[in-house]
């Protein structure tokens, strides 16, 4: 399950695609609208996604353009919404579901894990479940323990699901477009702190293949692997480390399943050091999987033990004084990298 590494974020040559600056949410919206214009089987469902345009504004204006048959504002019934999407996908539609906060995916687990993810395998080629579940994740806003989680690691443990988590507006569009073309259930993780970020986004049919990481910064001393909001945090940490004489390479995974192990391994073979960074709790996390892959396939290249930077293993506390102590900070990445070098010297 590996794809080719792509330096930067473009899957199509830059010269051919006009760029515009869009926010992350606008980029997502563009991907959705393009798909809905292209394919009448694509429709969206979710709470408050109609007139209101979704809790984070991604579906603003869709109701006006596509009407209530295809932009379905649902009751608060997450389990059934995802189950209905699965049933609709199985019978020829291509539903896109918005789950308002990633924490609420817990209410959809049966349909996702026991059904959507397994149909193809259990029923064989007669079955396909082309659907996308979009959901905002992450903390940093003092929303407390049930509105701040990053649960993506749970879903890596479910064969049959794909999981993506873009960090830039261009990837938001590119990965969503690719997910909308995919014939499998894709969990599409957005991050609350990214929606307002802006960046260049290619116009037209821009697709970023699933399972393909991006090398955000080349470096020779240590590999920082992350995704979603923390890809940006890792980049900022790399700049700080550069000032301290440590040349970090930064990989933005973009997809967690399939995981671009080739890109990770190539980088670790070069730098000899690896720090995996994620917002979810460390135990049983995405980083644990990456660390295991590296231990299995690149052990002999490691100059130092693999390190993980993630949330501590607690629920996320509300207090503004505690939330930052629970979630990983840029300084944790910097400190960890420095420790790795202190070890050697």
């Amino acid at each position: 399950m590996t794809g080719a590494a792509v330096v930067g974020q473009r899957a199509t040559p830059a010269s051919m695609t006009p760029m515009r600056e869009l926010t992350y949410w606008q980029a997502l919206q563009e991907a959705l609208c393009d798909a809905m214009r292209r394919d009448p089987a694509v429709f969206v469902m979710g709470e408050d996604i109609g007139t209101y345009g979704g809790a984070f504004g991604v579906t603003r204006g869709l109701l006006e353009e596509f009407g209530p048959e295809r932009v379905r504002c649902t009751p608060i019934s997450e389990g059934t919404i995802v189950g209905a999407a699965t049933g609709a996908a199985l019978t020829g539609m291509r539903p896109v579901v918005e789950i308002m906060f990633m924490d609420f995916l817990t209410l959809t687990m049966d349909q996702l894990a026991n059904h959507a993810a397994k149909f193809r395998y259990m029923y064989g080629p007669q079955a396909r479940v082309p659907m996308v579940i979009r959901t905002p994740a992450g903390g940093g806003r003092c929303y407390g323990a049930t509105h701040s989680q990053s649960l993506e690691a749970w879903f890596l443990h479910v064969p049959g699901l794909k999981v993506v988590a873009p960090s830039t507006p261009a990837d938001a569009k590119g990965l969503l477009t690719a997910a909308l073309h995919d014939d499998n259930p894709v969990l599409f993780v957005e991050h609350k702190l990214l929606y307002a970020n802006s960046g260049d986004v290619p116009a037209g049919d821009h697709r970023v293949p699933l399972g393909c990481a991006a090398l955000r910064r080349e470096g020779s001393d240590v590999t920082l692997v992350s995704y979603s909001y923390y890809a940006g945090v890792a980049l900022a940490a790399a700049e700080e480390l550069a000032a301290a004489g440590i040349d970090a390479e930064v990989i933005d995974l973009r997809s967690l399943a399939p995981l671009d192990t080739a890109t990770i391994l190539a980088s670790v073979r070069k730098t000899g050091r690896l720090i995996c960074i994620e917002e979810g709790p460390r135990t049983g996390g995405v980083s644990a999987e990456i660390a295991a892959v590296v231990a299995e396939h690149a052990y002999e290249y490691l100059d130092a033990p693999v390190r993980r930077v993630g949330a501590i293993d607690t629920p996320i506390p509300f207090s503004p004084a505690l939330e930052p102590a629970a979630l990983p900070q840029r300084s944790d990445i910097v400190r960890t990298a420095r420790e790795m070098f202190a070890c050697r010297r």
Partner: protein
Amino acid sequence: MQLTYERVLGAYRTMRMIRSFEEKLVELVNLGKMSGFLHVYLGEEAVAAGVCAQLGEHDYVASTHRGHGHAIAKGVDVRGMMAELFGRRTGTCKGKGGSMHIADIDKGMLGANGIVGAGIPLATGAALTAKLKKTGGVAVAFFGDGASNQGAFHESLNLASIWKLPAVYVVENNGWGEFTPTDYVVPVKDIAERARSYAMPALIADGMDFFDVFAKAGEAIARARSGGGPTLLECKTYRFAGHYVGDALAYRPKDEAEKWMTERDPLRGFAERVLSDGLLNQDDLQRVDGEVSRHIEDAVKAAEAAPFPDASEVTTDVYADSHRRG
């Protein structure tokens, strides 16, 4: 339960406390003094006050994201709540819970709840405890019209009905679920109708009228207490403010809100009624208003002066100490 002078005064005090507490929060958030995700109970005071006036110490309530009113009405200390919302160590939950997760188990307040519908099975379980332990207690689930579309609602009503649990399901129908009108997502006119599928009695109360809520809740709670099983009590009410503090309210007709606020304000209605019936006089009301506003100001001052939890507290209380009981 008889409405004595003390009880009527207490009811007014509860409603005024909720009103002032919530208005203060809106002010604090707008001033940038408070962070977080807050849903205020303005306009719905009579529901929490009317139901909780029928409850005692050994009864339980399970609440919602819009939970401050339920907590106050169930007797949770307002100073602790204010400190909790400021994220201080002196808060009800030492700053770890926040607005959507305030709980005071000793007071029978099983938690505000960040997950819509999740409190309903919790109250069902608390009712089971009361039944198994034969405490004579009852459990009340407060939840919104929107929550009545969750499976948890339907499964709970079914379970409570077949097990004849001492539970009361109080749906606060305020006409909106976040930014979506209730009739867009609920096909029945009255949510009370949903009880019929579970062979459960249902009542509808005017949620803007303390006395009507008090009477109907009294009937339901008495039935639960005497072994007669659960009731679905629908309170028709209205959310005066936005869904959350900061909501620009662009989706809601202005005149709709205005009408409710001018014609159906539960505090004004209560005051008019108790004055005209001679239950309380103007002095009583003013005295309570003054006490409440001083109490809230003190709570804010105390909270602002209180220490934040130490960063080391982030790792405490992940697990209970199984060797220490009680």
